């Protein structure tokens, strides 16, 4: 038996694994201190950038390999772009955050890279087994990173919570997978799809397994009713890890759902749409209403990320009409907005004692750049033009109305008001309240540069969405 492997299709994956292993080896020869930690993070950023550029230039090298186990198509490329962007942001945050880590400076970078490996394989997987391995790689790295601040109780607590709930969701996943395998006799997506289409009626056991798999991914994306962990863990985890959970892990969850819905689950679309519709409405309501009373900025962003998961679910509800492109667009804009907000939090991490919103008071006078970055990020999340979040919400709601989900659209638009309220509360503190300490904050050149990248992303996506919409459309049509 020969393997039909085409190595050239997997240059990104191979490059990334080599990069991670190289960093691991390099780690052995470096002293464990802050300075070396920064060096390694910078090297990792350079490596990720090179792979990213390489990836962009190889758009179009599509195909499947290993008997359908690995898929390279528009979807995998698009999501890999998102993953690389988020890893780039998070690596930079990790680099700036080195001062807060007391030990294991370099390993932090390594974990980010390994999690990235997991995400990249997750979206390229064409087989449930590979999918599972990738998912677990991601989850385990996330658990370790969440509990990274070992002398901080909240971090440990968050880590344990994530570990237990993560293990539970893994168990649910495997249980669901066993039903899917039981009803179709294979774990390869294309084979499952072919078997199902051949059947007259989709077996109940398959539906049951599908619901379980979606539940376990619902944990990843923080959708109701699997969202309870989010605020606690967002609050307790080190800030770069919180950011990674928001713009890496969540995007990966959606990547997995998109992949599954466009292949394995597509025969059962009717059942799916109803289920997801209910979840989407509830998630939007829970996230946005829960965010209102929050006083901790990381908890606030945690609730708001639940709310955004709800909006993104609209994209899955309308997946089979025209919501899927809107979903991809929303993810891109969400990545830049949330990334921008967390960049600010990391930049002022030394000045935040408890991550309370009130600690941001007078930020606009202490550092106009950071305040502007936060302002634009939050307004984009709220969906204010001319920022990316506006067009993203517009596109999703357009898709919802197009497929006659009026209730969902109504919940969606009304919660724009709710979200505007709690985001503006933060803006008010930054711009209106007098600072406790008048000293201007020192913002390094790199921090400014990254902030400008995030701002530019948010603005370009909002002002000139055309090409990105096109990109999202191409992602689905080309394979």
């Amino acid at each position, binding site marked *: 038996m020969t393997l039909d492997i085409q190595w050239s299709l997997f240059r990104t994956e191979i490059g990334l694994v080599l990069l991670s292993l190289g960093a691991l080896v390099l780690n052995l020869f470096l002293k464990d201190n802050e300075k070396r930690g920064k060096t390694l993070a910078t090297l990792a950023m350079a490596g990720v950038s090179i792979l990213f550029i390489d990836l962009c230039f190889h758009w179009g090298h599509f195909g499947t390999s290993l008997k359908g186990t690995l898929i390279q198509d528009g979807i995998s490329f698009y999501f890999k772009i998102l993953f690389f962007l988020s890893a780039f942001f998070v690596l930079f945050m990790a680099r700036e955050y080195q001062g807060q880590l007391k030990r294991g400076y370099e390993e932090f970078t390594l974990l980010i890279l390994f999690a990235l490996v997991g995400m990249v394989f997750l979206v390229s997987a064409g087989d449930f087994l590979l999918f599972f391995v990738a998912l677990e790689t991601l989850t385990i790295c996330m658990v370790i990173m969440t509990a990274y601040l070992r002398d901080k109780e909240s971090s440990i607590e968050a880590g344990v919570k994530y570990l237990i709930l993560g293990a539970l969701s893994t168990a649910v996943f495997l249980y669901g997978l066993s039903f899917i395998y039981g009803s179709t006799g294979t774990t390869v997506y294309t084979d499952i799809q072919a078997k199902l289409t051949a059947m007259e009626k989709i077996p109940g056991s398959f539906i049951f397994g599908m619901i379980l798999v979606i539940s376990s991914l619902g944990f990843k994306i923080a959708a109701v009713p699997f969202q309870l962990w989010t605020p606690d863990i967002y609050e307790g985890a080190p800030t770069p890890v919180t950011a990674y959970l928001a713009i890496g892990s969540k995007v990966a969850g959606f990547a997995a759902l998109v992949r599954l819905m466009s292949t394995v689950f597509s025969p059962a679309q009717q059942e799916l749409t109803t289920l997801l519709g209910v979840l989407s409405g509830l998630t939007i309501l829970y996230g946005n209403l829960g965010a209102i009373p929050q006083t901790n900025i990381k908890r606030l962003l945690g609730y708001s990320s639940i709310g955004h998961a709800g909006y993104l679910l609209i994209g899955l509800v309308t997946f089979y009409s025209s919501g899927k492109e809107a979903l991809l667009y929303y993810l891109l804009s969400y990545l830049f907005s949330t990334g921008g907000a967390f960049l600010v939090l990391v930049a002022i991490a030394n000045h935040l004692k408890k991550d309370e919103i009130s600690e941001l008071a007078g930020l*606009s006078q202490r550092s106009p750049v950071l305040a502007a970055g936060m302002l634009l990020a939050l*307004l984009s999340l709220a969906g*204010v*033009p*001319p920022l990316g979040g*506006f067009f993203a919400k*517009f*596109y999703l*709601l*357009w898709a919802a*109305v*197009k497929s006659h989900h009026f209730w969902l*659209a*109504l919940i969606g*638009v*009304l919660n*724009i*008001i709710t979200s*505007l*309220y709690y985001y*503006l509360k933060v*803006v*008010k503190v930054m*711009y*209106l309240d007098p600072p406790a300490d008048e000293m201007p904050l020192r913002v390094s050149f790199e921090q400014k540069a990254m902030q400008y990248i995030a701002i530019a992303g948010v603005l370009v996506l909002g002002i*000139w*969405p*055309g090409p990105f*919409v*096109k990109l999202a*459309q191409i992602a689905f049509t080309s394979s």
Partner: protein
Amino acid sequence: MPILGPISWVLLSPVLGASFLFFVPKEKKEILKTISVISVASSLFFAVFAFLKYDRNEAGYQFVDKIDWVPSLGIAYHAGVDGISLVLLLMTAILAFTGVIVSCSVKERLKEYLIFYLFLIAGCFGVLSALNIFFMYFFYETAVVPVFPLIGVWGSGNKEYATMKLTLYLTLGAVLAFLALLALYFVTGLNTFDFTVIEQYVTNNPLPIDFQRWAFPLIMVGFGVILTLWPFHTWSPMGYAAAPTSVSMLHAGVLKKLGAYLILRLGISLMPEGAKIWMPTVAWIAVINIVYCGLVAFSQKDIKFILGYSSCSHMGYILLGLACLTPIALNGTVFFMFAHGIMAALGFALVGFIYDQTHTRMLEDWGGFGKKIPFIAALFTLMSMASVGLPGFANFIGEFMILLGAWDKYRGPAIFAVAGFVITAGYMLKTVRATMQGPFNARWDNLSDAKGIQKAPYLLLILLLIGVGFLPMLLLPSIASGTAPILKRLGSAAEDPADKSIVFAAYPLPQGTSPDLSIIHTPVKSEGSAS
């Protein structure tokens, strides 16, 4: 890249100005001011240019620029003006120009102030010039949100509460209307947001009546919130009282009119049947606006609150005019929008000028200013007269036309609306007496009058009010050319034998005929309360 026409430049000037401001250090105040003034002056120049060049005989959309934006959704940057938006755009450009000049007296954080202010201006221009429904909404939201920091940071009094309330109210209205607009997109089945295409389609294929029945109120209420449709008016007096002068000017002058403009453009024009169903109700709400807000204004102590409620009360006339759906009333409404915009901005500018020196706006604290600052006091008195609707000022023409239209259509509301004049006269005269006349309080000995170039913006505004008040024909032909297609869809103009009455006096005036009242006022079949 196509060469952009004057309308796009009206919109682009403040955007470019704001972008330049980013790169100017905040200490260089003179440069900041110069750039801002130049950018709005250039807008004004292009707006005047367009106003003069607009071909009133041909009518329709002119100076059109179109650039594809997101083709798959039918979104394009599509700008141009018809007779209605031309007039309102000119008003906005004038107010933006005066507003920026007034803004230059801001002391703290001038750079940020001007940046937000220029974005606010750009949003207003955008709504008026957009010919794509997506961009109308886009710019509308762009105009609403910069107000939050503008009031929050630079305002006075209960500013944090006021600015949050204002922003949330206006956004709530906007998203409700947004749902209706999305539904509109799919109901037409054209797969485009292009307003001109949809308008053409609707002319030949009226939208389903059921759709019009539920979508029209969404638009009416959604954009009515910014027009201070009762009971959604409470954000306005509070917001204006807290806002810095130039923001009150633009908000009361322009942003409120954007609500009326969008109701006219998207509601009445595209859903005429829905409008006919709901407008009798709106007429009575308009009465509540006129009478109730007028009475509330009467009992206010803070002068900015008086002006704020007064502007809510005046919005009642705009609502009533829109509700009539007849030629004379619609033309009068647009005319009144122009007049009220200028008048309201002037009022807030004058009060702001005094407030900057006195730091109090309470009625009992002011008094006898006529002796101390005669120029400002005289203008304030003139502004009050305009507000009351005295003939000779532009406001009179607009209100007169609206009432003529309302008399035929809704006699009951019209009677109350006329009574509104008395209320307005009551509180305006009371205000003038308490502030500009009466005994002078010695604590204001240091008060100084506007000098030299400072007088220019105020003079410009008052001269416009008087000039247009005597020469309404400067505006009416373009307004009439803009409302004609809307009225045609309403079905009220086509069968109307005195079609020329759309124009206040026939245009062009037939040689040798003297304008008699029958041209001004042709009775239209009355409905509702009159029967």
